[in-house]
């Protein structure tokens, strides 16, 4: 057995959690409440297949990794694919997405969209704060009007949206 690298450990953890997910699927299926007398075919049957399938393939992946067959990241971006992940940049992106999710129904679409736009742009190296924030808000406002007026799709309203719709 070859020595497991750091990347290999990460992959093992991932494969292991998929194995656990497979076991959970089986557990969930066993304790599922099935209404009596409706279905000719039990709704348990198919999830049993799927759960077992996931367990088998993730066990297979764990064996593959232990044998030293590690993954090569998908994609064709230049640079060393095995370089350790940059968690700082990643957390900024996650913060942008999470900020959007949290703020959307509290402060409205425009603020939420501007937050995700700006934080992700910042994560990728945008550093001209005033210009970036202005662009983020312009993007959010234009999208808001395109979606709501152009496509009749309702989006959560906050201070900005109310400001404009009462003026219109």
């Amino acid at each position, binding site marked *: 057995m070859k020595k497991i690298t750091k990347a290999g450990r990460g992959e093992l953890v991932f494969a292991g959690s998929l194995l656990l997910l497979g076991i959970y699927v089986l557990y969930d299926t066993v304790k599922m409440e099935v209404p009596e007398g409706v279905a000719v075919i039990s709704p348990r049957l198919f999830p049993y297949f799927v759960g077992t399938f996931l367990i088998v393939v993730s066990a297979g*992946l764990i064996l593959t990794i232990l044998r030293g067959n590690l*993954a*090569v990241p*998908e994609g064709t971006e230049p640079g060393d694919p095995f370089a350790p992940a940059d968690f700082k940049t990643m957390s900024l992106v996650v913060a942008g*997405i999470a900020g959007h999710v949290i703020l959307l129904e509290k402060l409205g*679409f425009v603020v939420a969209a501007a937050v995700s736009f700006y934080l992700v742009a910042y994560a990728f190296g945008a550093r001209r704060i005033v210009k970036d924030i202005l662009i983020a808000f312009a993007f959010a406002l234009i999208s808001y009007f395109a979606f709501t007026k152009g496509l*009749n799709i309702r989006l959560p309203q906050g201070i900005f949206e109310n400001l404009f719709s009462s003026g219109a």
Partner: protein
Amino acid sequence: MNSLNLLLDGFATAFTATNLMYGLAGTFLGTLVGVLPGIGPALAIALLLPITMSVAPASALIMFASIYYGAMYGGSTTSILLNTPGESGSVITALEGNKMAKAGRAGAALATAAIGSFVAGTIATLLLAFGAPVLADVAVKIQPAGYLSLMILAFATVGTLLGQSMIRGLISLACGLVIGLVGADLQSGALRLTFGNLNAVDGIETVTVIVAIFALGEVLYLASRHKVDEWAVISVNDKTWMTKSDFKRSWRPWLRGTAIGFPLGVIPAGGSEVPTFLSYAAEKKLSKHKEEFGHGAIEGVAGPEAANNANAAGALVPLLALGLPTSATAAVVLVAFQMYNIQPGPMLLSTEPVIVWGLIASLFIGNALLLLLNLPLIKFWVKLLKIPRPYLYGGITTFALFGAYALNASTFDLQIALAVGALGYFFRRFGMPTTPLIIGLIMGPLAETKFKLALQISNGDYSVLYAGLLTKSIYFILFMVIVGPFVWNFKKKLAIKK
């Protein structure tokens, strides 16, 4: 010819002012989004799905068809000028196309790609127009058990053919199947994997998963790679046209690419990865300029590009006639149909002739429009690649979040998007292809429905699952595909030992 009349009716549908406008908008938007690096046709359509929420079905599907082809054209432009293919189908194009561009022959590479796509797209769409009704006529009599066997075959091929190792493709498939399980069972209403959440009762929204796994997964992965430089976009200096010898070297690869791409789209080969690779290999073998391969051989662009487009049209055959998607992109188009409560399948051509033939006609129109739009506008598309990357990713992320939210106006969907985005990151990091996940997610519930349907109709008699010629032959093929390679290896080992 009946199909011919229907196709002419289709042109009448597509040529109404409204639909022509949607078609034009679709080609434009499709190219626009497809040009953006890292966005392939599947994601492009998924991102643009909300746009059609307030549009009539015929117009919306015409728009999707145009987006589909547009995104493919846009993708090849990026592969050639930037070496950043948006999807697996353009990887091969980048191989030779980018080298050609670096050698100052970007114009010729773009032209052979565009004309090749047009030629292949037109021939393949014709084959689609005449092939789909034939298949649908046969398919009318297919019983649920027959569909189930076809789906199992598709799972097996998609799961094993794609990606760097068989096991990783199967993992991806299994994850898709698990996500597809979430929600209430259609027949009994029994709840699965919902964790007591009311929002999860109707299952995880497919569009949310697609948008999140492609777009958010991509952005997260790029973020993890730390350094993001501005792209080196190769500018187009030569005239955007081909020389006589370019033409001479291109037309056979175009036709061969079409011949390889179309049939591999009809059967479940999991998208354009396999056919483009096969086309490339064939051109390399047949070329009189073998020494140019690896340094920018025009055949290596012409063939795979044609194969890619023919494959896309081929994938529409089983989608329209059987309701079975064989690639991630076709799966997204299926979702688009389902949004309008239209279930593709053998009845589609008779119940929705206006939509289907309008769609097929608009593929012809879109294809022609793209050829006209793409080459002259190439400077405009190149400008898009100069959007600063921070803004581009900010925009993609926000737009993806909108796409995930808009369908159900639900923040639950956004939370799912974040989780699936993380999964998409791990998939890329650990070398797992995403197509099997999408196929599993969309076809898993369909397969379960057919499985239960077969058994419910037979009132619990399991022999129905392998009754009939179709099911028996498909399971035989499946058996050979799985067992065949083992036997082959075993024989080889024996031979070596001797």
